[in-house]
């Protein structure tokens, strides 16, 4: 996508642009989408039109306007009708699963993304059953301001949950994509709801969703820390370590099925690999001094890590199959916090070789290191977006530590948050949302924020535990 397209898209859009719901939200998300090759041709006309509008410099007329400035977020109004329960004899499928509960999860997902505004079901004129049996009466939905309508039904078959759903474009009066059926064990009903939310998100933005993903993090209460895992919305938490050792910095493997993390169970910080589906745990090397900041290469074959065994914290590459070690940095300063580019060719990292902690990029073989950040005296903990277009990091200044982003050329840097101690940024699998931890006093909580700086949200943690060191998984399908 061209640069001019980005500029055009960052201006106002009119009703004329939105030939469909899809195009409308597309326009909203343009700066984000423009940064990566589009998979869909349909995006091009939107972009071209945007450029035309921009060149003319005239605010287009029409009721609908999408303004992509910080304060002007306009999420898409969507009606999410309760799924109809088709099971014989009742609404509930067991484990308290019903069409209503299913759509509650879908609604929460879409609302939290900031891209959608689920409408209040009390305003719906068509009942769920009417909607399901007769299809949408588009005039009714237009009347309440919905631009998209979701209808669906659930039933149980052979002990499994079967959910069918349809997505309708209210303006066009058509289906968006085909109907889709998901089948899963009843106990995985939340997973089904997240799949549906992903499907809606993808159809209306043209981009992959992120609702079927997990978060691993360090949970704490008092002086006790342990490794924990939950769905991205905070549900289904599972505590993974129980041995009372200090644990830090879990990192999801590119497959989403393993973690690296740091544990002090031997009295010293050592890196372990944990297999989620077998529960197996294995130490990854035992080098004198500091072993820290494990980072997976995108192909899952290597780990970049920090070791101090040669007298100073430096970054090394460890072959996960052979255990062979290769040193990547060499100087008298701290080098730490490596994070791979999605194509595996480069590593962004943290170094104070110029006198203060700053962000650098080097080739994955250790060569060609260049500095990315020049503003501020404390820039650390970089994390490369899975889309490759941005690097999130922590920028310190004025006694505050903020989540910031910068592109891989060191351009377009900006702070997204403003708090006393924000850290540990990690990206949603689609590279749209950044998850991080925020310390205030002795409390630590997890938050998400859109990479544009919009839509900062607290992540719900049950049992009033603290959370830190989050790592976001790839999609779990």
């Amino acid at each position, binding site marked *: 996508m061209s640069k001019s397209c980005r500029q055009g898209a960052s201006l106002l859009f009119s009703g004329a642009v939105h030939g469909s719901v899809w195009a409308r939200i597309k326009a909203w998300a343009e700066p984000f989408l423009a940064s990566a090759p589009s998979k869909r041709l349909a995006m091009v006309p939107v972009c071209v039109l945007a450029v035309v509008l921009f060149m003319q410099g005239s605010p287009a007329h029409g009721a609908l306007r999408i303004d992509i400035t910080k304060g002007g977020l306009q999420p898409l109004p969507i009606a999410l009708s309760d799924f109809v329960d088709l099971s014989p004899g009742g609404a509930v499928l067991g484990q308290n699963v019903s069409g209503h509960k299913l759509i509650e999860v879908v609604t929460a997902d879409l609302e939290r993304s900031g891209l959608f505004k689920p409408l209040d079901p009390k305003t719906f004129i068509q009942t769920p059953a009417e909607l399901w049996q007769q299809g949408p009466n588009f005039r009714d939905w237009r009347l309440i301001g919905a631009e998209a309508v979701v209808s669906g039904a659930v039933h149980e078959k052979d002990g499994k949950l079967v959910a069918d759903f349809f997505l309708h474009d209210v303006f066009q009066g058509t289906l968006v994509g085909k109907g889709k059926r998901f089948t899963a064990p009843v106990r995985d009903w939340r*997973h089904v709801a997240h799949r549906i939310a992903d499907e809606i998100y993808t159809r209306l933005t043209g981009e992959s969703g992120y609702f079927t993903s997990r978060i691993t993090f360090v949970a704490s209460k008092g002086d006790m820390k342990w490794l924990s895992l939950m769905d991205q919305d905070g549900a289904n938490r599972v505590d993974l370590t129980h*041995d009372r050792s200090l644990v830090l910095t879990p990192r999801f493997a590119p497959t989403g099925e393993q973690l690296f993390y740091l544990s002090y169970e031997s009295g010293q910080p050592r890196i372990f690999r944990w297999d989620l589906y077998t529960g197996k745990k294995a130490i990854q090397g035992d080098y004198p001094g500091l072993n820290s900041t494990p980072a997976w290469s995108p192909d899952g074959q290597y780990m970049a890590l920090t070791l101090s065994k040669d007298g100073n914290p430096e970054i090394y590459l460890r072959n996960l199959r052979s255990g062979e070690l290769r040193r990547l940095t060499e100087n008298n300063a701290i080098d730490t916090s490596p994070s791979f580019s999605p194509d595996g060719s480069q590593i962004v990292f943290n170094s104070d070789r110029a006198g203060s902690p700053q962000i650098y990029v080097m080739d994955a073989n250790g060569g060609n290191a260049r500095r990315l950040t020049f503003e501020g005296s404390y820039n650390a903990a970089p994390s490369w977006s899975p889309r490759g277009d941005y690097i999130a990091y922590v920028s*310190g200044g004025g006694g505050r530590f903020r989540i910031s982003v910068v592109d891989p050329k060191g351009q377009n840097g900006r702070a997204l948050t403003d708090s006393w101690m924000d850290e540990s940024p990690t990206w949603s699998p689609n590279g749209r949302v950044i998850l991080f931890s925020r310390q205030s006093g002795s409390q630590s909580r997890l938050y998400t924020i859109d990479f544009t700086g919009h839509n900062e949200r607290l992540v719900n943690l049950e049992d009033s535990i603290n959370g830190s060191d989050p790592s976001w998984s790839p999609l779990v399908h």
Partner: protein
Amino acid sequence: MKRLATLFVTVLFLGVLAGCGAVPKEGPEGGVGAAGSGGVGADGSGLGRPGGYGSNLDDPNGMGGSRGDMGRIVHFDFNSAMLSAEAEQVLAYNAKMLSKSSGPIQIEGHCDERGTREYNLALGQQRADAAARFLVSQGIQANRIRTVSYGKERPVIKGHDETSWRQNRRAELVSR
């Protein structure tokens, strides 16, 4: 007075540890079910939450650690692992005491709560290493020394001001 307080905390801490000793040390058990093909979470893997942790307890044995010494903690400036003249004095004194014995020595590096967890782990390591190098320069055998960085995980004072932070930026000699 401060030392007395420290002693009290240590005793208290030993008490906590003794209490925790009765709790069975559970290994992690079970895996996590694959979404779509099984439930998440193994039954019975709920977490016990005893307080306290057992890593860096001082043990005066071999450390000359009774009252009247110069202490076994040295402090650092923000974002620095440079030993001050005062720190070198303290370490030189400790080197003299340690040279009378031959037991293993652990040096722990710590940071204040500002800055990232990862960078502070590296910085804590640099502080521990700086202290270790100084001890070696004073004649202590390098193979007696083990360094451990805790980054910002183990503050001595939980306050959120410069007074607390100064106390927390430290390297600490402990026996193991």
